[in-house]
């Protein structure tokens, strides 16, 4: 299958016009020594064969249309109404470039402006950029911003923050003169009293994620107050859907609020592409990384949208830019904007409450099963951890038999937390799913079944 539009006759005419005897003449400057190879790739396929082949590969994956998924940990199985893809996948959105030519990109620019406005409303923050790669890289960029803005070098991160987010932050900061300190937790959450001990005059920022990796809500207000008393910036990482019912970062004093946008209308897709949202308070406006759309006027005074404050960005500032980011995740952010609009104010609250209701009901039922113990009695949203004494591999097999994927095994991320399992329960989960889940848990709770444990990578 090829997607070439030139005919053989066209090619001949073009070579003639160029004045080249053959195609080889055009690439004569490539040294001969480099030309001595043939690509070892499989032969091409027709579209029919391609679809057959790829559908076959796709069937080797268990997916959440066939299985009830209780997997969370950063990506969640939410329902995506048909409108989202019908609109976002229009060729005019999916096959256009970054809107540098504003007059030819008003659709994209206005939708980014609307996205920014929606995210600001959701988070109660002042300014949002046009999106980042994901929740983890957004948090790392937030830490970079805090280091730059304060001139200090210490970042405090609770160990309740998503383990991969912490890893990504370490990677991003590995070349800088910065120090990352991880804070211990108790009862599944960060103790503000412990935080206090690590705060000093060199602390650039305190990070906190709420709901945290265990699903528990952190005491964001106390953390924020302590952080500000030390003159540091407070970085909050939040679940956007939870903000339908939970206090938003802007209200408890976050200076930077970020998060994973996947729950807003983006399919799981094995972890990406999704988008990270990135918001700041007004004071940090000119330090924000990435693209931003602004409202202005055209020559005739009509409302017009354009990429703005570009003096922060790499294509203008080069080595002095606020970040090296160029491509963002515009299409994923567009899906987020369409999804939020479709929800509307009432729908957002309803969705958040559905998640809250289903998760609390599921936890209550699970806790009635013998051998299932509380992990944390802190407040939570749509995800919670439980202690269940059993072999993860055998448990998984029992769950698969009931057509269930998940929960997540906590020891894969926290080796010192055996028997911990993390359940995410969204609006997609039904009472029928719950019946099967409790059956699977009930059957295997108790002493570990005698099966070879399967090794599954974690990082």
């Amino acid at each position: 299958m090829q997607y070439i539009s030139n005919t053989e006759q066209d090619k001949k005419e073009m070579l003639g016009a160029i004045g080249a005897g053959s195609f080889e003449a055009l690439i004569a400057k490539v040294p001969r020594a480099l030309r001595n190879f043939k690509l070892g790739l499989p032969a091409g396929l027709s579209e029919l064969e391609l679809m057959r082949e790829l559908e076959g590969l796709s069937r080797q994956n268990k997916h959440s249309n066939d299985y009830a998924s209780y997997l969370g940990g950063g990506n969640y199985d939410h329902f995506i109404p048909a409108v989202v893809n019908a609109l976002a996948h229009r060729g005019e959105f999916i096959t256009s470039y970054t809107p540098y030519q504003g007059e030819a990109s008003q659709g994209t620019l206005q939708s980014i402006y609307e996205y920014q406005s929606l995210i600001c409303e959701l988070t109660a923050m002042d300014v949002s950029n046009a999106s980042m790669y994901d929740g983890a890289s957004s948090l790392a960029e937030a830490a970079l911003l805090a280091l730059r803005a304060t001139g200090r070098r210490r970042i405090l991160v609770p160990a309740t923050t998503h383990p991969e987010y912490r890893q990504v932050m370490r990677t991003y900061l590995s070349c800088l003169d910065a120090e990352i300190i991880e804070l211990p937790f108790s009862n599944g959450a960060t103790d503000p009293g412990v935080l206090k001990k690590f705060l000093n005059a060199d602390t650039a920022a305190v990070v906190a994620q709420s709901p945290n990796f265990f699903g528990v809500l952190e005491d964001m207000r106390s953390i924020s107050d302590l952080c500000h008393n030390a003159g540091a910036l407070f970085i909050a990482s939040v679940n956007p859907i939870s903000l339908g019912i939970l206090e938003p970062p802007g209200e408890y004093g976050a200076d930077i609020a970020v998060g994973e946008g996947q729950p807003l209308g983006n399919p799981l897709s094995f972890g990406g592409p999704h988008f990270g949202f990135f918001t700041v308070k007004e004071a940090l406006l000119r330090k924000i990384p990435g693209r931003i759309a602004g409202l202005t006027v055209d020559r005739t005074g009509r409302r017009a949208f354009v990429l703005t404050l570009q003096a922060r960005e790499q294509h203008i500032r080069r080595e002095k830019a606020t970040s090296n980011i160029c491509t963002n995740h515009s299409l994923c952010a567009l899906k987020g904007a369409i999804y939020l609009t479709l929800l509307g104010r009432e729908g957002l609250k309803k969705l958040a409450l559905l998640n809250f209701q289903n998760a609390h009901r599921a936890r209550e039922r699970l806790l009635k099963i013998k051998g299932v113990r509380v992990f944390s009695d802190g407040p939570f949203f749509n995800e919670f951890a439980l202690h269940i004494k059993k072999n993860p591999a055998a448990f998984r097999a029992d769950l698969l038999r009931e057509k269930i994927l998940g929960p997540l095994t906590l020891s894969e991320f926290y080796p010192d937390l055996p028997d911990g399992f993390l359940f995410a329960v969204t609006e997609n989960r039904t009472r029928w799913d719950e019946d099967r889940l409790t059956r699977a848990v009930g059957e295997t709770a108790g002493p570990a079944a005698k099966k070879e444990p399967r090794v599954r990578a974690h990082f």
Partner: protein
Amino acid sequence: MSELIFEKHSRNDASWLPSLEMPEAALLGQIPQTHRRKMAPAIPSLSELDVVRHFTNLSKKNFSVDSHFYPLGSCTMKYNPKSLDAIAGLAGFSQIHPYQDEADAQGALRVLFEMQAFLSEITGMAEFTLQPAAGAHGELCGLLIVGAYHRSKKEKKTKVLIPDSAHGTNPATAALCGYEVVQVRTSAKGHVDVADLKAKLGDDVACFMMTNPNTLGLFEEDILEIARAVHAVDGLVYYDGANMNALLGICRPGDMGFDIVHLNLHKTFAVPHGSGGPGSGPVGVRKELIGFLPSPRILKKDGGFFFEKNAPQSIGKLRSFYGNFGAIIRSYAYIRALGREGLEAVSENAILNANYLKTRLKEIFDVPYDGFCMHEFVLSARRQKMKGVKALDIAKRLLDYGVHAPTVYFPLIVEEAMMIEPTETESKETLDEFVRVLFQIQKEIDEEPQKVLDAPSTTPVSRIDEVRAAREPNLRFRR
């Protein structure tokens, strides 16, 4: 006209969601007061029809590859096959969770594993990671590997050399990784000035970042000598793969001596640009650098695929999970569809189309660097500027003729630069029409330049006041 969603109102009861089983107040009552949201966010309320109409109408205000010729230099705006979208949307790819057990995602792992191998073969590198989310993210990955490599050898290196024609992400990334950026001059022929490069090479140089073909669309014919010179001071040579569309099946960065390569799947490998992402920026390395790649790597054992997390030398993780799988699956399918011959045809036609356009346009524009080009070329509108019409004006006038503008004012070393990349998927007929339009605009410049200066006049808005946008930032709707 350009009404915002916030300025519209209709009935929305979110009935696409099931009803709550308990009264709302009872549920809210379970949330501790201190954690509860006090004021509802001012998100608009619109019926489904009004949402559909709003975003459909917005989409119509965009130029796109599906609707317009889009010769945006350096961006490789090729046709994005619709089959790839369908494949990415299959439930077995789009509805799988990153924390599923490996055994329950073998199809996805196979795709990632084979994709690593395909890209290694195409570029001549030993091993690839698919984790970086975009080209600039790939650069970050690459320069972190450079740092890790020199640290492992206990060498202290402080500088990164970059040609003056480079993309802005190159210096921005080098700075992010703590390096001092030193520019290398472009020669009169439009190549890296090897003498200048050699003068700036020393034991403190960690890396030389370059594209080949370079941003002028010219093949760096001294590449073998350049790589040798950089290696002589134990510097690494980094390949920015923005221009890889020119080289498929013709030559390979690995054979040229590059140590680290990033590719832009959203350019060369047909991932749609999505109005500015998501893309994907895989990074390949030569054998000695494999240990530094981000974790986890995807490996094969006993016929099965698994994540290898044990990587003591790894630079770490660059993002959550494994990369932009939804983009990678598209490129994987693209490579499978095209095969070797199809990929060779990509670069052949991309180069042919670019040279044809360059030949035809030489008549009206200055060509700062002559000779055959690769997949793109740079013109200068300095002749037109003397008549009072700048590259920007020509770019805007093109919009009136239903053609997206080329990249203008880049690379920075060319006055009034217009960078044109037709890609392989365009027909001669489309190119001829583009030439006809530019000749028409030239005629306007000669006879009625005001028409060009006033452009665009057929787009949803005329020229935008960017100064006001920056001076009085209005970045969100407020009631």
